[in-house]
């Protein structure tokens, strides 16, 4: 409803009469100064955040249900009786067999993913300048970093699945190496279940992101966006890419740090 503060003086020209109001939220415009496509991407990401939120809540609740190792860190041993200390599980690096490098590889992966966000920003920025060559260049870098991340994750999974040479003696007396969805040498089976599920779900997101970026690259090369007059699609995919990056920060925190 109208308020007296917004009244026009009586001297307003006749043409002004019957004009609908034109404030930010008065319709006929984009109140957030964002196209519907960008808004849709934001709402999708909000929705996706709740999906991940549910998974990480599940992680927290299940972890809370399990026992913790109470001794000194140096005395830690793998057992299904307590939740493992991440530094003791993720301490391998490709090519450096047998050396204890806690969280070094995952730190590398995280760094790569953050780099990919930087190159994504540069691709979006190049799009604003309508610089086709630069968009292509930065998209390629982003695709490259994304692919390195995915490949690293594949290595990390392989290592996790194959396990250590020593393995762990299970309840039935046998020695088991590595982990799958039902058995786990590092700790309770659910540690492995959650690890596979949540990092896998995140990896699926990264993979979808790479596919989208490849599609963007092809479309850029074909001049689709140039003909359209803007590179907003890159911006939308960029939002998605940053979101996936952000989610990784949380996954990383939950699985590796705390």
């Amino acid at each position, binding site marked *: 409803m109208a308020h007296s503060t917004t009244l026009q003086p009586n001297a307003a020209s006749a043409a002004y009469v019957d004009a609908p*109001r034109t404030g930010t939220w008065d319709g006929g415009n984009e109140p957030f100064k964002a196209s519907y496509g960008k808004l849709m991407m934001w*709402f999708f990401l909000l929705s996706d955040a709740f999906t991940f939120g549910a998974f990480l809540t599940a992680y927290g609740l299940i972890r809370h249900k399990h026992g913790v190792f109470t001794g000194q860190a140096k005395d830690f041993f793998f057992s299904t009786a307590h939740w493992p200390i991440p530094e003791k599980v993720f301490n391998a690096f490709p090519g450096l067999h047998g050396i204890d490098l806690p969280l070094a590889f995952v730190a590398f992966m995280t760094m790569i993913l953050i780099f990919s966000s930087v190159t994504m920003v540069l691709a979006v920025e190049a799009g604003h300048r309508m610089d086709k060559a630069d968009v292509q260049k930065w998209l390629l870098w982003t695709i490259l970093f994304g692919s390195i991340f995915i490949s690293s994750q594949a290595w990390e999974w392989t290592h996790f699945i194959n396990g250590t040479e020593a393995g762990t003696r299970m309840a039935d007396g046998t020695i088991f190496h590595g982990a799958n969805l039902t058995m786990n040498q590092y700790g309770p089976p659910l540690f492995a279940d959650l690890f596979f599920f949540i990092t896998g779900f995140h990896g699926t997101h990264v993979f979808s992101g790479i596919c989208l970026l490849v599609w963007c690259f092809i479309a850029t090369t074909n001049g689709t966006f140039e003909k359209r007059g803007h590179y907003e699609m890159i911006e939308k995919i960029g939002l998605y890419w940053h979101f996936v990056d952000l989610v990784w920060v949380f996954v990383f925190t939950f699985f590796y740090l705390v």
Partner: protein
Amino acid sequence: MATNLPVSAQSQGGVGTAPVPHTEHDDHLHDHEHHDQHWLWKYVFSQDHKMIARQFLITGIFWAVIGGVLSSLFRLQLGWPEATLDWLQPILGKWIEGGKLNPEFYLALVTMHGTIMVFFVLTAGLSGTFSNFLIPLQVGARDMASGFMNMLSYWFFFLSSVVMFSSLFLETGPAAAGWTIYPPLSALPQAISGSGTGMTMWLVSMVFFIVSQLLGGVNYVTTIINMRTRGMSMSKLPLTIWAFFLTAILGILSFPVLFSAALLLVFDRSFGTSFFLSDIYIAGQALHNQGGSPVLFQHLFWFLGHPEVYIVIMPAMGMVSEILATNSRKPIFGYRAMIGSLIGISLLSFVVWAHHMFVTGMNPFLGSVFMFLTLIIAVPSGVKVFNWLATLWRGNIRFTAAMLFSVGFVSLFISGGLTGIILGNATLDIQMHNTYFVVAHFHLVMGSSAFFGLFAGVYHWFPKMFGRMMDEKLGYIHFWLTFIGVYLVFMPMHYVGIAGFPRRYYSWTGFDAFSQFADLNKFISLAAILAFFAQFVFIFNFFYSIFRGRRATENPWNSTTLEWTTPIEPGHGNWPGEIPAVYRWPYDYSKPGAEADFIPQNVPYSQTPSSNLPYERELAE
């Protein structure tokens, strides 16, 4: 130009002639429709929001019939536990054994009845239909933000429907663990035959359903934010749009959590994980699963499940507000309070989920927190109820079929809401939990009342959907049979529940304590089956009127909102000329000094000098 035709309100029972805006239309028509369009693109893979709405509605009606048949089947069992049901053999085949309904199939029946009614009818059929139909028409847009995604939304729903429908015909039966699909029952195929392929298909179907909801939801929200016509500020939106807006946001935020729960359950069922499973000994065998938590599933499920009931009821609330104001010929009482209470309900809906879980062994302190938050919902609900009643108060009421169903909605919402206060109390809930009292409560407050909202919406917007009127007399018959039927079913059900009769039981004849309720159960069953058959009056009226109904006028209810400024059968693009601009709120009914008892939203103040309020007078000068 269609919008310039003077509308005679007299012939419709209204008062006076509504002013019509003098809009300067350029005379050539922007025709957005290709007249030689292939029927496949016009009727099947349509991107027109009005066609998609009709697709949702008709699919919803199909599902409602299936859901109703299922409930009649299990009511037969509950009402006449000793009867021989051999006559159902031709339909149910091996599920009738020796004249008796198979007990596991009974569980499948209640499970599928719940799933179908909650998701396929009252979520997709109700908000899918009316959000699609009304959002672009009432905010003044040519179509949804993305017509293509809107089409996908319907076809994902269709795919989901096909999967769910097929599961009814599985040899092992459809899902049977209740619509809430609690593990471990739903996670272990060896526990019950319905947890086999039927459960898998249930989960697959729901994943498609959630995708459909998401595609629809982001479309509704962005359309409302970005595509309102000139002058249509958020405080000039009809309450229907506010309701659809908040419903869509609830869907966007709560369905993904069900998606998470469903995915985790898929892994537990098919890949040997233990997210929801621990310490289970079944069929003489200990399972390997250790450390999971079935209560975790309940938390995830109800984080969706509770907002879901508001996803079901809020669109009905919005439409009822609109219909009550139109047919009382009065502004809605407390427009801003109505918006505020919708927002309040939406926020609260996310922090009350554990009131479904008072008996899971949760900390009583936590229980009391959830109880407190739950009871607060009575405040915005009360605001709405009193505003509806105040809107009716001394109104110039027209009893159209839509109006009857709207009043019926308010009645059912009050009756069902009162028992919500009882169930929201943790101590009382421990007594009532899982009894027919709960069943009676939610069937009144969100089941039947949402159905009443749906019917009200169909009767009211049918002329805009199909260009014809539904038959009023059949509408009255439909209303009274349904209204009386619903109360006859659910009022006695409270007593059965207070006596402690648990829901989902195949038969109570083994318990002396319950045998005295045999008569009452028979009565409920009889009423339920009669009320179900009464719905065929509606179905006949609906399909008959599509083809043979009386031709509608442009604005048959003398309503103020923008959808009634379109031609009788709007093409793709909705307005042949320019989209009208909006100057006033949507509830200028019976404004003192006005020539007619309604002033459409697109009439500027300069054309209504006789009725302008002081500050409006200045706006017009």
